[in-house]
């Protein structure tokens, strides 16, 4: 650096970075809309016929085609589609006639609640397990973590869910069954609790209905633990490898030589560096769960985004499928952005 190059304030650079991020965000969104639009047009399903079914006359079908704007050229349809999306109009479900945005607003909190709890479980179990395995490579604990992780990777969630339900709900009776609440509580909840967040744990807690809260917890704990297990398998493997890498670094040896307690070496010094890549891993696994784990939601009769999209697919309800897909895409992009920001926050090099 020469003396003439005066230090530049970091702000313009940061603003430029932010602008860049926003532009890339907008482009990603547009790409997402383009892809969903194309998918809706190339599927070999006549959207009009799937709405009108067996009975309608040819004239009625033509009328519906015009009403849906399907008689216009493709580029025009795409412009209308993007315009609607930008105004927050995700279309109207063919099946229920309900605006997709309204439906998603109803079902998404259920998925959010499940995915958040599952991620908490996954992190709480996965990070310590990964650290344990990394600090004792080759030990019984390491093998055990690997084995448990491998099972989480390879067993179909569908099967795990059914077996879990059968065992913990059917035979042992430790947890609540499918659905978000027992029937009686569910009815009380609908009449006595004003939904604020749409997440039952939060809403019951806010209303001070602690017995309902406990019941809701007993229902969510199994699917969340199940999804948490899958996410734990991933997180623990990644934590182990990141941690192994850090523990081999010189600064760790230095810290140990200086006589620092081992837990401090691991959890403070090494962890700070492990956290950087780990955030991305956790965010990705969270985003994956937010897509609505379709099979888990179906088995547990969980009225979330995954089951909404699946059922819409079954009815050829393309506006609902696409609207749901766009929401998933937006959630994914948002999480990516958040993990990017967090990454900058914890990693001094990225500042």
């Amino acid at each position, binding site marked *: 650096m020469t003396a003439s190059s005066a230090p530049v304030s970091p702000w313009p650079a940061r603003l430029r970075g932010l602008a860049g991020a926003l532009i890339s965000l907008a482009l990603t969104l547009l790409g997402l809309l383009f892809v969903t639009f194309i998918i809706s047009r190339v599927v*070999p*399903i*006549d959207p009009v*016929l*799937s709405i009108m*079914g*067996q*009975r309608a*006359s*040819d*004239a009625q079908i033509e009328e519906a085609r015009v009403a849906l704007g399907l008689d216009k050229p493709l580029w025009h349809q795409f412009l209308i589609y993007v315009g609607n999306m930008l105004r927050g109009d995700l279309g109207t479900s063919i*099946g*229920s*006639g*309900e605006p997709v945005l309204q*439906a998603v607003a*109803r079902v998404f909190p259920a998925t959010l609640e499940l995915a958040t709890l599952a991620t908490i479980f996954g992190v709480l179990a996965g990070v*310590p397990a990964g650290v*344990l395995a990394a*600090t004792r490579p080759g030990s019984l604990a390491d093998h055990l973590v690997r084995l448990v992780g491998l099972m989480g990777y390879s067993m179909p969630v569908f099967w795990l869910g*059914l077996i879990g*339900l*059968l065992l913990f*709900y*059917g035979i042992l*009776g*430790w*947890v609540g*069954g*499918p*659905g978000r609440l*027992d*029937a*009686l*509580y*569910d*009815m009380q909840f*609908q*009449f006595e609790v004003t939904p604020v967040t749409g997440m039952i744990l939060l809403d019951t807690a806010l209303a001070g209905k602690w*017995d309902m809260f*406990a*019941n809701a*917890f*007993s229902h969510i*704990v199994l699917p969340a633990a199940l999804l948490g297990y899958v996410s734990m398998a991933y997180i623990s493997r990644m934590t182990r490898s990141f941690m192994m890498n850090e523990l081999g670094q010189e600064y760790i040896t230095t810290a140990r030589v200086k006589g620092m*307690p*081992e*837990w*401090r070496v*691991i*959890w403070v010094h090494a962890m700070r560096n492990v956290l950087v890549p780990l955030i991305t891993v956790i965010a990705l696994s969270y985003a994956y769960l937010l897509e609505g784990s379709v099979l888990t939601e*179906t*088995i547990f*009769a969980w*009225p979330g985004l995954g089951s*909404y999209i699946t*059922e819409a697919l*079954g*009815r*050829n309800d393309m506006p609902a499928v696409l609207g749901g897909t766009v929401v998933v895409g937006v959630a994914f992009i948002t999480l990516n952005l958040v993990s990017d920001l967090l990454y900058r926050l914890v990693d001094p090099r990225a500042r």
Partner: protein
Amino acid sequence: MFLSPILRHAGVAATAALMLGTAPGVLLAETPPDTLVIADAIDDIVSLDPHEAYEFSGLDVVNNVYDGLVELDPSQPTGPQPGLAESWSVSEDGMTFTFKMKPGITFSSGNPVTAADAAYSLQRAVKINKSPAFILNQFGWTAENVDQMVTADGDTVVLKTDKAYAPTFLYNCLTAGVASIVDMKTVMEHDANGDMGNEWLKTNSAGTGAYVLKSYKPNEGYILEARAGHWRGDAAMKAVFMRHVPEAATQRLLLEKGDIDIARELTPVDIEGITGNADLKIQKDVGGQIFYLSFNQKNELYKNQKFLEAMRYAIDYQGLAETVLKGSMVPHQAFLPNGYLGALEDTPFSLDVEKAKALLAESGVTAPKIVMDVRNATDRMEMAQSIQNTFGQAGITVELNIGEGAEQLKRYRARQHDATLQSWGPDYPDPQTNAGSFAWNDNNADDASTGTLAWRNSYDPGPLNDMTAAAVMERDGDKRAAMYRDLQEQHRTTSPFIVMFQIGYNSAMRGNVNNFFTGGAIDSAAYWLVTK
């Protein structure tokens, strides 16, 4: 040390808290004695407005929340019974029907039920013109003339029709959900932009039924609450809670644990699995949907009567029903489902490969090859594979063309198929609904807009057209039933249709649940008679 001492204590505390949260004490396994909890797949609901609802799950709600002028008895849905009308008569010329209203009945709002409400409701159903409106349009009622055709006069409602139809035709159609009577005053209070309260009624109720709709969340469920002092007598179940549970295995688990009282969507495998469980019972019914094979007569081959007959003996109806379909369908061989006026219950055809071979030889057709369109659903593909196999034994080659339902329907509607495996559900509780489609085609040209099933198969029913037209006008109920029996006898031996099965319902329930009626082929579920 792997963890700091403080963290280790915190971990133990957190684990303990988690386990406490799941303690069995917070679980209520039994359903309350005066509440009926049902699990079903109800994502078919489009609307709960009785003049718009046209799907099984929606009509179940309508049946419990609304009444019509005439009704079906849920325990024995054979013919129309008094509903909100106490008596009715038909004029000499057969074109004017007068219904006298029962006095003293109120809507859930407290408003008294009047003839004006009844007339308004039928007018509304025609005017908002949703999917089921055509059921009423059949009587010559249009949005323009319905105010003159349907009128209130004191405590009577007068219905005029454009022709002298069979009175049973009108009465049967009036038992359909689209003829439900709504509370005019309440509905009009919720009129938005001239929609006659349609938007509001999609998720609210304004009827005279035993229940009131308290809550409906799409893809989650609905709650009905019983009305005190209902005109039929108070329902034993004070509340009905329907939970949307799409997965059959999950429904079964909930039922076995006692968290629900009735499971309506169990698979044959689940039904087998719970057979023998002393806490549960299984109720078998038939529904209205029928499954059939049909052949496009653009292909001259399918006009050969001996060849068609050969194929009728080359299907393993009984074996399929017992092994592959396991009670989810029952053999049925005429176009009116059991439960309908004039239905034929006998099954004259059965698998007889030798007879089929002989008939094929007689027909003069050599080495026939059929391309059969089949929807990509498991039960249909299994059905088609069995047919392919037994047809093969009889010397008829079948090539399966498997595809997505809407696409196959497109080919069918355009008369592009060779043969197709299809299902058909009746639209309303009168035999005309199926006769008018399977046995009616007055213009067999490609550009005709009839669109009936007969037309789709390029089938000219010939004399059967006249029989269908006459049956819908026959004023004597018994004679009318006989006409439909005769019509079907001829149809099943001469048409290019082979009706094979009628759908079966398996409702599994806790042992203490009694008097749950699904409505069978022509009606919807009734909750108000259930006890437990």
